[in-house]
C-alpha cells in the first residue's frame, strides 16, 4: 500500500493554498489530540495557515490532563515494597505534587518503561515474587488494549499483575469544552485514532446540539491539512457537520470489538482533568468482575494530599483559553529543562510543542 501521498509536498501545498482561499473570516479551530499538537508543530503548519485562522490546542494530551492526585498515586505504588511499576514512557517525567516517576526511579524504586501493556504482563511472568502495577493512562485509542491485556491476564490466571486506571474518555470532555464560556471554538479537528475505535456517532452532538463543525482527521501533514480544509469549507458554507477526512483509518462504526473489550472490563466513572476539574462520566474504573486486576484493590496506598503549583496555568492552556507564551511562567520558571506543569514536560504538551518547535522560548 502506498501511503507516501499523505506526505506529498505538492498535495500539501495545494491544500495550503485552498485553505487560504476558503477561509473568508476569522475562525478558531481546536485540535484535541496531543499527536495533532506535535504534528502541527513538527511540520511547521501554524506558520503556513492564513492569519484569519486561529489554530488552538485543547486538552488532547492524556498525560497532561492526568491530575496531580493520580500521579501521586502512581508514585505511591512505586514506593511499595515488592512492587514494580510499569509505565509508558510518556508518564516518566510528568511532575506530581512532589515528585515524578523518573525521580522515584533515580531514587532506587523499580520503575520500568514498556511500549505495550503486554510487555508489563510478560514482566509479571518473569518476576513471580514481585507485583507489577501498570499505570493505565490514555484515551480510547489505548483503553481497549489495557482491557485486552487484563482479559489475557485473567485467562492466564496471572496473580501478580494489576492496572491503575487513570484513563479518560473524549466525547463528554468535548461537551464540557463547548459548554465552557471561556472557550470559543468554531470547529474541532477530531482525533483520528480515538475515532478509529469509537467511530463517528459519539460526536454527532457537536453539530446537532451546538452547531460546531468537526472533522475526524489523520496525522500525516496532508491529513492534517485536509482536516483543516474540510473544516474551513464547512464554516465558509455555513454548515455544521461531523465528517471523516481520515477515511482509510476510521470506518463510521469504529471498532465494535474494541469497544466490547472496554465494556467488559471497565465501567464509566467521574474523572478529574487537570486544570479543568471533574468531568462526570469521563473516567473508567475496573469492574468488580475484574477487581483482582485493579491496583487500587491489590495494592492499597495512601498518598499525601495533592497540591498544585502556584502560578501554573496548564489548565487554561489545556482549554485553549491561554496560549503557551501567555502563561506567566512560560520560558521563565517553566522550560523543558525545568518544567513546572505537564504541558511543558510531556512531549505532546502544547507548551513543549510550542517551545521546542516554534520559538525556543524567545517570545
Amino acid at each position, binding site marked *: 500500500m502506498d501511503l507516501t501521498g499523505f506526505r506529498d509536498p505538492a498535495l500539501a501545498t495545494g491544500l495550503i493554498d*485552498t485553505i487560504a482561499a476558503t477561509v473568508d473570516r476569522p475562525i478558531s479551530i481546536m485540535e484535541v489530540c496531543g499527536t495533532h499538537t506535535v504534528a502541527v508543530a513538527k511540520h511547521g503548519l501554524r506558520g503556513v495557515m492564513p492569519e484569519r485562522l486561529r489554530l488552538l490546542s485543547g486538552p488532547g494530551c492524556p498525560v497532561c490532563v492526568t491530575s496531580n492526585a493520580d500521579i501521586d498515586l502512581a508514585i505511591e505504588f512505586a514506593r511499595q515494597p515488592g512492587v514494580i511499576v510499569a509505565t509508558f514512557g510518556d508518564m516518566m517525567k510528568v511532575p506530581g505534587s512532589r515528585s515524578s516517576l523518573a525521580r522515584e526511579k533515580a531514587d532506587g524504586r523499580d520503575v520500568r518503561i514498556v511500549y505495550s501493556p503486554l510487555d508489563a504482563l510478560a514482566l509479571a511472568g518473569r518476576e513471580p515474587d514481585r507485583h507489577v502495577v501498570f499505570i493505565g493512562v490514555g484515551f480510547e485509542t489505548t483503553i481497549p488494549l489495557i482491557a485486552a491485556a487484563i482479559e489475557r491476564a485473567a485467562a492466564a490466571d496471572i496473580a501478580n499483575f494489576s492496572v491503575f486506571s487513570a484513563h479518560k474518555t473524549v466525547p463528554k470532555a468535548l461537551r464540557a469544552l463547548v459548554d465552557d464560556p471561556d472557550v470559543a471554538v468554531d470547529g474541532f479537528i477530531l482525533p483520528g485514532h480515538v475515532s478509529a475505535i469509537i467511530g463517528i456517532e459519539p460526536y454527532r452532538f457537536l453539530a446537532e446540539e451546538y452547531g460546531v463543525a468537526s472533522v475526524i482527521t489523520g496525522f500525516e501533514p496532508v491529513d492534517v491539512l485536509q482536516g483543516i480544509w474540510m473544516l474551513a469549507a464547512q464554516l465558509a458554507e455555513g454548515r455544521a457537520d461531523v465528517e471523516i477526512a481520515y477515511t*482509510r483509518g476510521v470506518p463510521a462504526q469504529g471498532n465494535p470489538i474494541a469497544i466490547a473489550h472496554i465494556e467488559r472490563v471497565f465501567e464509566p466513572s467521574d474523572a478529574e482533568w487537570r486544570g479543568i476539574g471533574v468531568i462526570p462520566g469521563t473516567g473508567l474504573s475496573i469492574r468488580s468482575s475484574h477487581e483482582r486486576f485493579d491496583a487500587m484493590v491489590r495494592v492499597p496506598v495512601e498518598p499525601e494530599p495533592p497540591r498544585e503549583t502556584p502560578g501554573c496555568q496548564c489548565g487554561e492552556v489545556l482549554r485553549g483559553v491561554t496560549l503557551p507564551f501567555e502563561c506567566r511562567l512560560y520560558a521563565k520558571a517553566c522550560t523543558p529543562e525545568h518544567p513546572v506543569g505537564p504541558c511543558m514536560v510531556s512531549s505532546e504538551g502544547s507548551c513543549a510543542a510550542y517551545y521546542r518547535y516554534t520559538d525556543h522560548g524567545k517570545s
Partner: protein
Amino acid sequence: MCLAIPAQVRSLGANNMAEVEIMGVTRHVSLDLIPGAAVGDHVLVHAGFAIQVVDEEFANETIELLKQLDIYQIGEAE
C-alpha cells in the same frame, strides 16, 4: 494520544498474535482487537496491538480527491 502507525501483517502466530512489519522493522503484536486480520493486510499498530484495518481503497480515493484540489472552488457549483 494517537501514535499508531500502519504496518503489514507478515505472519499469524498462536494466541492471537501476529508478526507485522513497519518499514522493514518487525514486531509481534496482538490481534485481540482485529481478530479477522489476515497475512498481507495493513493494520494500525498502537502500543503492541493492531487497533484498526487500513483501507487501501479509501487511501487511494483520498489521494485522488486531493489531487483535484487546484480546480476546487467554494461556491463554483452553485
